[in-house]
């Protein structure tokens, strides 16, 4: 199992020198003036994890060419996108943060068609990441895990399982994370994300944070990985200017030990 992190440009110097990291996920393209990028690129396996577009609509040619160019630039083994729908069709409203679609037949059809169309234009496998909901929308027609299972049944895509997202949803539903996880299509998981959660003042509860995963989260990860026969990589999912170098390296080390 490969263990990696996100490329945080402000930690470029430490990542160039550091040990114990197998891969780096790229949330943004490298800045043209990033002095560490050449060394990072030559040293690490890079995973494309940018915002490519929301697959509730077909990606336009410009976005597809951008995805292809980034995939080529990184030499990524797979391309990641999210189960998200964060801006309105007319472009007027945009929440600028990952936000899930309604779990309905219509959205299932949209995501299956558009993800298959994107996969057909990529030279690498496409993997899709689950997104947490903080509240249920009454218009949804099925639970998220069933919607995801049906999506993967109708595509040949891989699953990027974000474990803190599962943990948070279980928390806000008053369920044990392991029980909520059991409904997800774990046999399709290619990569897992692990991170810390912290109390958020606005949400009045825990949410994803650029912090170390707790021991509970690492136990949850070990429990999950044992049930994901195709999983190839675990990534410490923290991408923030406030992330400190020691948090990144210690988290990766603790993930490796817990596996």
């Amino acid at each position, binding site marked *: 199992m490969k263990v990696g992190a996100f490329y945080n440009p402000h930690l470029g110097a430490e990542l160039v020198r550091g040990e114990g990291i197998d891969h780096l996920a790229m949330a943004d393209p490298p800045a043209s003036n990033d002095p560490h990028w050449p060394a990072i690129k030559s040293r690490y396996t890079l995973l494309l994890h940018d915002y490519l577009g929301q697959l509730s609509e077909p990606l*336009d040619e410009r976005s597809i060419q951008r995805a292809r160019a980034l995939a080529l630039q990184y030499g990524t083994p797979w391309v990641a996108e999210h189960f998200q729908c964060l801006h*309105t*069709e007319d472009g007027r409203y945009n929440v600028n943060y990952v936000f899930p679609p*309604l779990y309905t037949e219509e959205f299932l059809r949209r995501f299956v068609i558009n993800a298959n169309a994107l996969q057909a234009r990529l030279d690498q496998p496409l993997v899709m990441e689950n997104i947490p909901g903080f509240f249920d929308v*009454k218009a949804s027609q099925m639970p998220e895990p069933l919607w995801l299972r049906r999506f993967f049944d109708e595509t040949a895509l891989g699953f990027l399982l974000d474990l803190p997202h599962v943990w948070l949803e279980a928390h806000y539903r008053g369920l044990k994370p392991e029980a909520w996880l059991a409904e997800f299509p774990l046999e399709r998981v290619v990569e897992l994300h692990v991170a810390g959660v912290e109390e958020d003042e606005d949400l009045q509860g825990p949410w994803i944070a650029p912090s170390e995963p707790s021991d509970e989260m690492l136990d949850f990860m070990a429990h999950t990985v044992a049930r994901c026969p195709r999983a190839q990589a675990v990534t410490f999912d923290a991408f923030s200017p406030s992330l400190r170098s020691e948090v990144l390296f210690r988290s990766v080390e603790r993930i490796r030990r817990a596996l």
Partner: protein
Amino acid sequence: MNDRALQDLVLRALADAPFRASPAWRQRALADPSRLERFARFLARHFYYERIVHFFKYSRTLSRVSGRTPEAVLRTTAFESLLPTLVLGSRDSAAAVANVVAAHMSNGRLGGIPYLPDLLRYEKAMMVAEAGPRVWRETGNEEGSIGKGTSPELVEGTVLLDLSYDLPAVLPKLLAPWTEVPRCPERPTKVLIARSRHGRVAVARADGAVAAVIELADGRMTLEDLARQAGLRPAELEATLAGLTELGAVRFATGS
């Protein structure tokens, strides 16, 4: 209403605080109002955190002198009082938040930073220019084709700033390591701020030709009239318009 339209309604409720408070939204009872409000406030703070840190990055580097960081406003009563009015992505909301940030930064220790008022005006203008609807995906029906005989017009959000200091000369120095506050030459300077249809903000120094075209491009004036009134030769006008179109400052009205 199909599911995509319902999703848009939920997204609008999260982004648009007045809509969220309206009977039109509340009567639908699509989500727990308390949870939705908490998440919307979380999103608003996240939305403006990203923009404040990005657009006020120059004044942020002065924080060890001024004693103030721009993002600190997100936990002030001034920002809290804006929350019920904010529409994420709107120009009015961007301007309201940018004004709060600029006021906060102006109240710091300002000795040795005579160009700070100009800098804050510039940063505010950048943040406001970035706001507004954007094209997320090309549908092939977009406006803006350039053809002979069409009339250039200013794109909404384009701003020509008159500054007392030559800010473009000091901006890169602010981002580089420094021990003494970088100095900025005091000389009148015009900068043009524009945004592409995809939301990318660009800045350029503006010369007399640019300033004249920006003032005159109203979507009705022909290229010949524009050249005559701006006092430009056709080749000069063509080069100026090409640059302004590239920046996203000007588009060509196709006429009726």
